[in-house]
């Protein structure tokens, strides 16, 4: 049996410098960014006073995110909804890319860790902005000063756990589907041995059902969870 599970392939090097590889993840991210940009321009092209068709869809999506941000983070946080929408859409399309013969961008820790670090900077910035630098440093000494190392650790654990959760879910799905595809090929060669080697009839059906869970459901779920957690953490930093 020959199952290959690899990280993203390196396609080339930027400026011929071996320290700057262009990976599959980067290429797919660029494709997805171009797609989202195209979608934005297409949906808001020739807007009218009374929305209909594609414009109604765009307005519905924007209103939905605005409502979600307001109900989770409280009044006056509308400025965050573009960031939340960006996170949600890049996560969703990045994960769903696996339906179109591309390696999903979120099955790479670099992508999710990048997003989590942006969120971490946002959390820290809001904590300092609303509590003052003194209040921020004092927060580490709660409830007593002995807890300071643990508080620092829990602060660092936020971006790590956020990125690992998203990456682990997508990469776990990738590994499980690949292993099952390999196993089904072996089974099909053993049971239906009279067929040529590269035809695996048993690979029809079951992987589709698994893909429905591991690609579609998990992708939507993780996009929602990642943006919900971002909203919860940033809202908490503003209100504390």
């Amino acid at each position, binding site marked *: 049996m020959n199952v290959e599970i690899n990280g993203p392939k390196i396609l080339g090097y930027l400026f011929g410098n071996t320290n700057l590889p262009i990976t599959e993840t980067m290429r797919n991210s660029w494709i997805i960014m171009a797609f989202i940009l195209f979608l934005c321009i297409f949906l808001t092209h020739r807007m009218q006073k009374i929305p209909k068709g594609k414009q109604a869809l765009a307005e519905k999506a924007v209103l939905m995110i605005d409502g979600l941000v307001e109900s989770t983070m409280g009044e006056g946080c509308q400025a965050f909804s573009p960031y939340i929408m960006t996170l949600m859409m890049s996560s969703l399309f990045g994960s769903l890319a696996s339906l179109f013969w591309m390696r999903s961008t979120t099955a790479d820790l670099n992508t999710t860790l990048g997003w989590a670090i942006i969120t971490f900077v946002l959390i820290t910035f809001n904590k300092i902005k609303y509590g003052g630098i003194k209040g921020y440093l004092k927060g580490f000494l709660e409830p007593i000063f002995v807890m300071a190392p643990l508080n620092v650790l829990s602060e660092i654990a936020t971006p790590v*756990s956020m990125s*690992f*959760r998203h*990456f*682990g879910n997508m990469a*776990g799905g990738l590994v499980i589907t690949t292993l099952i595809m390999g196993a089904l090929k072996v089974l099909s060669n053993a049971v239906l041995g009279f067929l040529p080697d590269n035809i695996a009839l048993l690979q029809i059906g079951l992987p589709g059902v698994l893909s429905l869970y591991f690609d579609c459901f998990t992708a939507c779920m993780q996009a*929602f969870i990642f943006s*919900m*957690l971002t909203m*919860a953490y940033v809202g908490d930093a503003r209100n504390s």
Partner: protein
Amino acid sequence: MDPKAFVAGMSALGAGMAMIAGLGPGIGEGYAAGQACSAIGRQPEAQGDITRTMILGIAMAESTGIYALVIALILLFANPFVGQF
């Protein structure tokens, strides 16, 4: 014995044992979902809020299991010990 084979075998065993951590999140998530069901039964009009909070809580509980999964994946596909022999 070939030390590489020994390390590879032990790593596979370790990956399997790391995934025992899947027990905890399973129990915790099941408990959370059960409690959410009974809460919805008591207060059906708050279904949206309850579901959202439950999903967030489940995601938090899941992270311990995900850590174990990441450790297992590292041991299987990016093993740091095999290269030392």
